[in-house]
């Protein structure tokens, strides 16, 4: 059994948690978490850490040159740079609305975070 200090990243409170992990890599105890989400976070952080990835993609035909995007769900932390490669290769055209799926990575949509100001009239 080992103890690990971990900062919960679920919300801005950022609880500094103490996590007990047994020899099989399972979480057996969480301390100093202010809510249940902390325990859940500790579990996934030990077994398969997940992160929401945010970035931008080039957009044509809009007032802006780049469109903010994110993964609709958190993805495996170890896959962040592969996901970045997919996002970097993306190029989209206006109009785009917030929430539109632009691509897919590991079964998770990459969605637009903004409704574009299109060149009108």
């Amino acid at each position, binding site marked *: 059994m080992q103890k690990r200090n971990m900062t919960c990243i679920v*919300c*801005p409170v950022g609880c500094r948690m103490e996590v007990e992990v047994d020899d099989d890599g399972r979480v057996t105890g969480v301390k100093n978490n202010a809510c249940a989400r902390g325990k859940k976070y500790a579990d996934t952080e030990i077994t398969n850490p997940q992160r929401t990835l945010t970035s931008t993609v080039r957009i044509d035909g809009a007032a*802006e040159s780049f469109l*903010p995007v*994110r993964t609709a769900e958190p993805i495996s*932390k170890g896959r*962040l740079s592969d996901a970045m490669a997919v996002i970097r290769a993306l190029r989209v055209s206006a109009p785009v609305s*917030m929430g539109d799926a632009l691509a897919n990575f590991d079964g998770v949509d990459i969605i637009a975070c903004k409704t574009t100001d299109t060149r009108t009239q």
Partner: protein
Amino acid sequence: MSGDNLTESKNTDKPDNNIKSYNNIEKKVVIIGGGPAGLAAALEANRGGIPPGEILIIERDRELGGILNQCVHAGFGLHLFGEELTGPEYAQRFIDEIKAKKIGYVTDSMVLSVSPDRTVTFISPRLGFGRIAAGAVVLAMGCRERTRGALNIPGSRPAGIFSAGTAQHYVNIDGYMPGNRVVILGSGDIGLIMARRMTLEGAEVRCVCEIMPYSGGLARNIAQCLDDFGIPLLLSHTVTEIRGRERVEGVVVSRVDENLRPVPGTERYIECDTLLLSVGLIPENELTREAGIEIDRVTGGAVVNQDMETSVEGIFACGNALQVHDLADYVTLEAYRAGMSAAAYALRGPGAQDPAGMIPTRAGEGIRYIVPHKIARGAAAGVKLFFRVSGIYRDVTVRLTAGVSEKGVTNNVRLRDYKKRIVTPGEMEQIEITEKTAAQLQNAVSIGVELCKKET
């Protein structure tokens, strides 16, 4: 096209047919700044009874949304919406509502002055000169970054030195990478966020230096922006020299002592082509000062009462122009209060002075400042006191006190204690004045917050 929303035709070169003059018109509520504070204030002014066409948001940028447009990272909205949104998504929710309700706004428009009688002047390439007599004004200009000039770092003046927010604009809005090998000075949230962003875009972030023995950013950002990518955080370290003539070639980093002075012999040279500065934010208050509004020297923002009203009646302040916030959600909530108060003022004129008078707030031991600065005695219940502490303290008691004067001596009497596991300067704290506490303020000469502490 509706209301004052002239931005839809922004990218056409020909003048819009519906162009209107904004010279010598009247509006019930004028809001300066279309970022999170301005958007929320406008929506709340509308909910407070001001018709959409009687509200005008004046925004300097090409579009509404303010700094949220370049904050493409997630972390916004947990408090307000119960989900984690990116900055643009958070802004979009408010912008959609502004547009749906046809609340007036102009973009590409720079406010030149606000007078104490609430005349607002602005210029815009499309609209020309505008002069508006406002029933009430909400100051929501946000803040700007401290620059190298504020730090006195010796060395030449090569290219490659950016404030973190400028770099954020280059990367997220313009699509340029400011450099490849990066040192970040200052561990404020923007610096931490940029450490991750630059890393994901392929740069090597060599370290983040923080002159204080603790980070000014949120703990979660240290975890997910630095620790996730193995970026070292050097506490009690600062940049003491910048090297390079045309372009930054490297920086000298030194440890500092408890008085924040560099310790000779601890210099270390770190090669880099870029230095990002994340060394603090300054509320933007040129307009506020010129209007003769009283400024708090600690926050850099206006002195306000519980309604977010400044020292000039009918002019309200909120968001980062009032005090630098950690979270956009709190900016929104503060702006709701300012917007509602502005609506009430515009509809009814100056409220009757509270006969019981104003109680000043008092930042006691361990507290840097409190907003609001004064509270009407009769309206204290439900008011939230926002404050920052002056250092990191663990297992501390935050004490709410009332100043009680007896025979010329004022004592600060305990009203209520709040136990905190940890408080840090990087995280704003708040205490809501309960009805029970408010009832105890009848004879108070002040209401204070102080720490009963053990420093760690």
